[in-house]
């Protein structure tokens, strides 16, 4: 039931190595030469409650999203990029995947008003791909990098859910065929 993980956290651009060991509730955190003992539990609402030796409590919700911990607490929401060096192999693969193209997904549910591109078309970064209406507001969805439209997942007039694939773009290098 004991565990030991070495993590690289990034704060304000600076990388910091942290070693966390122990569990399931009693943990030791080593960073920059200091060692902190922590009693940690997950509360029924999903938040973590950490108690330090001096009684100080740190309470917040931690979720993981795209290689970062997202921490929400009464102090606000912050994002801490986090790497698990023992999983570096997998990360690298997935990074490579990221670079191989772009999948444009709906950030909110809505209706597609207009589709401005078709499959096979070359687009530059900033090209308007389509117009999505949500709550009476029209949002222009643009390409964040150049490439070739590999797939158009929706048609004008269609309702889409959050997260739906709108347009997939392949990088220019892969788009020859």
């Amino acid at each position, binding site marked *: *039931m004991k*565990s030991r*993980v070495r*993590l690289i*956290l990034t*704060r*304000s651009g600076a990388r*910091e190595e*942290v070693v*966390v*060991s*122990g*569990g*399931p*509730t009693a*943990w030791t*955190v080593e*960073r920059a030469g200091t060692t*902190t003992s*922590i009693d*940690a*539990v*997950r509360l*029924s*609402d*999903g938040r*973590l409650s*950490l108690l330090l030796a001096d009684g100080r409590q*740190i309470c*917040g*919700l*931690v979720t*993981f999203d795209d290689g970062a*911990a997202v*921490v929400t*607490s*009464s*102090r*606000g*929401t*912050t*994002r*801490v990029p*986090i790497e*698990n060096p023992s999983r570096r192999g997998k990360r690298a693969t997935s990074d490579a995947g990221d670079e191989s193209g772009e999948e444009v997904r709906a*950030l*909110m*549910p*809505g*209706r597609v008003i207009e589709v401005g591109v078709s499959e096979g078309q070359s687009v530059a970064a900033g090209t308007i791909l389509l117009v999505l209406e*949500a*709550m009476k*507001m029209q*949002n222009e969805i643009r390409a964040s990098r150049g490439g070739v439209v590999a797939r158009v997942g929706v048609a004008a007039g269609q309702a889409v859910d*959050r997260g739906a694939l709108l347009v997939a773009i392949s990088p220019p290098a892969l788009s020859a065929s």
Partner: protein
Amino acid sequence: MVTRLLVANRGEIALRIFRACRDLGIETVAVFSDADREAPHVAAADHAVRLGPAPARESYLSVPAILEAARTTGATLVHPGYGFLAENAGFAKACAGAGLTFVGPPASAIESMGSKTAARERMIAAGVPVVPGMRKAAAGAADIARFGREAGYPLLLKASAGGGGKGMRRVDSESEVAGSFERVASEARSSFSDGAVYAERLVERPRHVEVQVVADSRGGIVAVGERECSIQRRHQKVVEECPSTVVGPDLRARMCEAAVAAARAVDYVSCGTVEFLLDASGNFYFLEMNTRLQVEHPVTEEVFGVDLATEMIRIALGEPLSIGAVSPRGHAIECRVYAEDPRRGFAPSPGTITAVRLPQGPGIRNDVAVETGSVVPIDYDPMLGKLIVHGADRPEALSRLVRALEDYRITGVETTLPLFRRLVSDPEFVSAAFDVQWLDRRLAAGLLEDEASPADEDILLSAVGAAMAALERERPKAGAAGASAWRRAARHEALR
């Protein structure tokens, strides 16, 4: 006979009116679109009738569907809420035509206040102060200069046919009049094919202060203090307070008197609000009258100890005012919680609410229309509800607001809560040193942009969170939180 009231609305205002009905022993009827079958306002009503598909024009704006719903359910009272068909004289008339009691002002009062120019003339006639302005277009620059000498500078030149901020120009002294007049007139000719220009006094950095009035059908009328609504984003109120920190007893008395005169001028009956612009010298000018119950009515309720929603229904039933000479106590602040993402230009954030945790304890009132599992549809105004705090004075109300915002959690959609969390630590907000453009200036200056960099606390949470997650992945039933979850699951099992 059972009295039954239909609310031709959705969301928090439908719940608010239903609560008022329940407090009065009146049965409730909800209407809903296909997007709202499972919405909290439907579940809260004694009766519920489908109006039509999600788009508002086919549901909440469909007068025939609403009248049919009233007929089906035997409702005799119809409350429009705010938005949708509130302030629609045609709807008020249609209700009357169908033999239903409209819970709101007479259609004639809605019409009178609905036309801004006609309302202005009526207010002048009733002695209600309006922003000084020329009553017809200027024949030339000399007319403007003459008006400037009467009304004082700065002026605002406006194209008579203009609108939406176009064809307007500020004039600070008589020496600028001639040049500015020519420029606005020429812009007006080219943009609107109409060169008519007039001038009015420019009210600089005004506050928006409004007075709540309540009038019964027997001639009784009372003004229930003012509300400070200067915290606006693009002309939309965001935070409201009662009372205003800049309104003293004398000014309050004069504003209340003017508001009563305004309401009397249109034979107003029901709850209504007279909105004023207030300048730094304590001059106030009629802006418009909202002929409905407003979003921000709870701050008045908390401070004056009245229930405006039940009063509005009682008045519609022909009863006399029950609100007499009430006096204010303490200070209340309301925050409008929207499903909008303040970090992305307040883009709407519809979706499913995965969890709601409302603040509670002394001085806190929640008028909220979502629960865990609720869906925020894409089809309507994305207001989720309102947080109202009340304290013995403004500092105590602010302390309680800070606490409430710390305790408030909504997940699944983005909300405007982060905006309020920033506001309450802004020194100008805390000292109430603001005007109607203040928030827009603050947002433009990056109020929300200086994203907090992770603190040591966040580093520790991230690290332990990652370690716990790793342990849980390896041993799903034996990790830290896993043990906890398992223990809980075991308890649940034991309860069966």
